[in-house]
């Protein structure tokens, strides 16, 4: 359709929906969070950027229906305080980074805890001395000496509606960057999880309790919305080389000793991080939506939501700050461009970005383990020099980490128990932004530190083999002798035929391979996932399952749901989810409720099609491990037989009549309605529906005047979760050219391998 006609129709639809007063139009974005906590902190960066000493006044408002006489806190910097923490024990279990340990340990010491105010009463001494509070580390079953959670005993319970303020004096020693926080050798310091942070008091399993779990290797963070006020004193070399979660209140104030005091405020965020680097470049740009406007998409969203374009259009300005390594100056535009596009599309699809700043951190090289992390209003990215402009690693990580401003920051999901709710939604949204706003990515491999387009040469050796490996020409190994490390050289890695596709030598004759951002999620199928998405990340058997179960698999599930219900419903649904739970803590059941509310009645196969059972879909996709795989089993055109006189001897073949047999299989156990398309010899194409709840499905036409040419199951590629798309299509005529091409590529590959080996010795 002509784009101008399309946008005109969309405008009409939008207007009609407004006139009709669609109930969705009335929904509004919450303006502010419940402000459960208020943190006021005065801190100083000491010891060449390795120690933060601070005094904090935290006020917690009990907005629940139950009283509590405890306050539970996260002290996640202590995850790296010793090998007896839960985190490092799990790191050993999962062999994080090949078993690498921190070079130095970090620690956060709680020096004093006083009660400042409890429901208007200080409860202190008559001379004004504050009441010292008892506190203790909470031992964990996995690591009794873990010190990532502590609790304060209050002198009396905090009733619903009351508030309590405590003073906490602490000192955090940061370590060389190991995982998510720490410093680099040239002054880079990334302060994350650097202060004691309150947990979430909420109802869990029918009981009001503090949700405040220890820092575990496979999980991230969860806390309540708060207002922050931070005064931070830093050495003079950090002048204008800081970025933070909050908005800077005026220029840095110079202290008597030459150090600088910066003042930050942040409202409606559930964490506060800051980063400084005297060596970095500090860049600023102002984001305005008109620089990124996509009118067709605005009109589509407005029409779907029943609102005006002006209402859905994200508004600015937003100050974008970038703390960039000088050797990465080539990436300045790419960082800003990706952040700007993400600001625009996330704002358009889910609701405007409510803060005045967003800070991007490009970590120092020796602190790259702080990269790729999200904090409210600040995220760390990370790039490698030599990235090709059509290889979207810099853009991918930037859009993804920005995306967490929405899925983690604004919708504060419980990452302890349901990490997929922020990562899965974020991956889903990231891939859509990449698909919408960027040229298709080209696959590449690295040579001498530069991206080369095409397929990689043979991969590097991996573990395995022994003498048997040598005997089969797979691996050559020598034992360790007198402290000298053994030699282990892979001679050949016989995975499967995938070898020639996945690791063809440089002369692969596939120099430019386009990647589809959304379909690329299907790489998750490389991993055999055997635990449901519902499994908390911390309980996964393998580290790499986290990447599947928390990231790509939920994203594929969401993409499948969006395609099943149609973009219009989906736009309304995900917008409603975001609007209802902005500044909230949704649970999976909340998501399912929204799905049932907005997607009820969605059908596969048009108006007369099959209604989708969303409860069943969710049970299979979320709680189960069922594989979704539909395929064509058999398609034949048999000559039609007619029996003139009812005697076998009189049976004959009818001219130009065919018995058409189309047989489909549900190879996996996942049940969902699916369409299939049949192309006939007369050129007509017909669509049919299969409820998908049986193991097989057949379509037969006996005595048909036309033959079937081709059958395609799920022709619109709705089911992104379908494990194998190649078995979804079947042409009656054999396609020799495809096999011949595959054979020729394999021949070339084998020739090359044998040629190289022929030259040895």
């Amino acid at each position, binding site marked *: 359709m002509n784009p101008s006609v399309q946008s005109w129709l969309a405008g009409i639809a939008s207007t009609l929906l407004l006139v009709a007063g669609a109930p969705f139009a009335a929904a509004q974005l919450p303006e502010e969070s419940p402000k459960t906590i208020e943190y006021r902190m005065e801190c100083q960066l000491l010891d060449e950027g390795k120690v933060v000493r601070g005094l904090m006044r935290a006020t917690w408002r009990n907005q629940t229906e139950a009283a509590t006489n405890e306050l539970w806190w996260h002290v996640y910097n202590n995850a790296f305080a010793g090998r007896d923490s839960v985190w490092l024990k799990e790191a050993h279990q999962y062999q994080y980074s090949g078993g690498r340990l921190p070079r130095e340990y970090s620690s956060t010491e709680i020096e004093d805890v006083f009660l400042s105010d409890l429901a208007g009463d200080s409860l202190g001494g008559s001379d004004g001395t504050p009441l010292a509070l008892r506190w203790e580390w909470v031992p964990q079953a996995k690591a009794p000496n873990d010190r990532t959670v502590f609790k304060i005993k209050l002198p009396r319970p905090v009733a619903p509606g009351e508030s309590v303020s405590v003073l906490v004096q602490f000192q955090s020693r940061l370590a060389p960057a190991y995982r998510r926080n720490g410093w680099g050798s040239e002054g880079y310091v990334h302060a994350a999880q650097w202060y004691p942070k309150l947990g979430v008091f909420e109802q869990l399993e029918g009981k009001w309790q503090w949700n405040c779990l220890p820092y575990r290797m496979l999980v991230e963070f969860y806390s309540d919305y708060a207002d922050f006020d931070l005064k931070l004193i830093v050495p003079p070399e950090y002048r204008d080389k800081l970025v933070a979660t909050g908005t800077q209140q005026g220029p840095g104030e110079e202290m008597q000793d030459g150090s600088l005091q910066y003042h930050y405020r942040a409202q409606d965020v559930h964490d506060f991080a800051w980063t400084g680097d005297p060596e970095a470049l500090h860049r600023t740009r102002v984001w305005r939506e008109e620089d990124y406007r996509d009118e067709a998409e605005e009109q589509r969203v407005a029409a779907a939501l029943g609102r005006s374009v002006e209402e859905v259009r994200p508004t600015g300005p937003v100050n974008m700050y970038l703390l960039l390594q000088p050797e990465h100056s080539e990436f300045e535009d790419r960082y800003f461009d990706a952040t700007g596009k993400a600001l625009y599309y996330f704002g358009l699809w889910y609701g405007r970005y409510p803060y005045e700043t967003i800070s991007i951190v490009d970590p120092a*090289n*020796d602190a790259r383990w702080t990269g790729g992390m999200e904090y409210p209003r600040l995220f760390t990215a990370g790039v490698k020099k030599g990235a090709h402009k059509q290889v979207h690693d810099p853009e991918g990580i930037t859009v993804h980490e920005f995306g967490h401003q929405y899925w983690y920051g604004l919708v504060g999901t419980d990452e302890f128990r349901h990490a997929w709710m922020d990562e899965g939604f974020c991956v889903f949204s990231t891939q859509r932004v990449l698909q919408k706003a960027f040229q298709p990515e080209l696959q590449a491999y690295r040579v001498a530190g530069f991206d080369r387009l095409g397929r990689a040469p043979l991969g590097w050796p991996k573990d395995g083999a022994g003498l048997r490996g040598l005997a089969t020409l797979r691996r050559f190994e020598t034992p360790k002798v007198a402290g000298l490390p053994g030699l282990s050289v892979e001679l050949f890695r*016989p*995975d499967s035929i995938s070898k020639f596709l996945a690791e063809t030598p440089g002369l692969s004759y596939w120099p430019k391979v386009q990647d589809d951002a959304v379909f690329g999620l299907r790489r998750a199928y490389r991993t055999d996932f055997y635990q449901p998405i519902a499994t908390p990340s911390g309980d996964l058997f393998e580290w790499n399952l986290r990447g599947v179960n928390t990231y790509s698999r939920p994203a594929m599930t969401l993409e499948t749901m969006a395609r099943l219900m149609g973009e219009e419903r989906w736009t309304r649904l995900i917008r409603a989810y975001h609007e209802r739970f902005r500044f909230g803590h949704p649970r999976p059941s909340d998501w399912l409720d929204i799905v049932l509310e907005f997607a009820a009645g969605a059908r596969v196969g048009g108006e007369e099609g099959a209604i989708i059972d969303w409860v069943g879909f969710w049970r299979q996709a979320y709680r189960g491990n069922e594989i979704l795989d539909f395929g064509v089993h058999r398609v034949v055109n048999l000559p039609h037989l007619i029996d003139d006189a009812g005697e076998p001897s009189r049976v004959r073949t009818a001219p130009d009549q065919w018995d058409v047999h189309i047989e489909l299989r549900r190879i996996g156990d996942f049940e969902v309605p699916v369409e299939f398309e049949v192309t006939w010899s007369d050129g007509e194409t017909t669509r049919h529906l299969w409820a998908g709840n049986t193991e097989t499905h057949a379509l037969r036409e006996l005595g048909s005047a036309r033959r079937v040419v081709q059958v395609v199951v799920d022709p619109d590629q709705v089911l992104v979760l379908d494990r194998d798309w190649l078995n979804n299509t079947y042409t009656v005529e054999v396609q020799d050219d495809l096999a011949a091409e595959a054979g020729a590529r394999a021949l*070339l590959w*084998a*020739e090359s391998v044998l040629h190289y080996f*022929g030259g040895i*010795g």
Partner: protein
Amino acid sequence: MSQPTAGFDAAARRKPRVARDTRPPALGTLLAGVGLALSRPRIWLPLTALVILLSLVASYPVQDAAQSSFGHVAGFEQDRSLLESGVLPRWMFDDQGRERNGMGSPSALAPLMLLASLLGVLFAGGWMEIALHRRKEHGLMAFLGGGGQHFFPFLRLWVVALAGYAFCTWFVYGLPGDWLKEQLFPAGDPERASSESRARLVDLLYSLLYLWGLLKIEIIIDLARATLVASDRRSAIGAVFRALGFWIKRWWACLVLVGGGLLLEAAVLFFAISAYNFLSLPLWVIALVLPAARVVLRGGRQAGLALYYQQVSDSVRRRPLKNAGMITEPIEDGSAWHG
């Protein structure tokens, strides 16, 4: 001691006739070697056919699996990116099952690689023998006869070469390389370098050093082969020492010969890839032509190196003594003996 005579002085004043440098030009010899190989289609055609045949053993299961698995697939093009992203359909996983039954290409490829390597040893002997001792021969039997004649000494060199490659790998990526990295980076880990640029530079230098090591081994082993054929000796270790000596004296020429040969092969590859990309040359044409080009170029490189070694050796043997230009003249006219 008597004073030199006037005749001797006159001879000494004349510009001495220094013996002409008879060392052959390296690049010219390489091209001569390639010409020698190219002019023997009765050799390189069967060799090409053999390479293709061996490759077919490994690649046919792929063709067969593809035929049965997506012979009926439509819309392959739109799924191609998925295939190449490693999102593999069922048939590719099935290949592991075929492998267990000894039918898959991976299990076939391992012995084929060993066979290819041993055939490479045989062919190297053939090309060098043809170049040095059987120049009038154009037939396959003479080629194989030459290769067979040197097969076992070459086989011993093959073992030496494998050890050399292993040593080179260990040196660059094993203990010595790791030790150097520990001096350069915290914990020897380039990821912990304060500067990514520095880490990349070191990584690049390691790669270049490794490639240089491999190239040197290739040159030494090829030279050792040439010495064995030229001098008709049998000791692999002795050949390696002679090759090392030759390399020290003529390293630049050797580099031009072997490196030039490898560059020629790389150029052919580049041309083939470009022909596919820009001229839409069918893959099967490349699959047929490329092995032929490689066989000729590798044979030409080996023949050229052998020719070069022999010509240099001959020129050394023929070359007159030092200062010969000064002492031959008086001897000829007898003036040196008059006094």
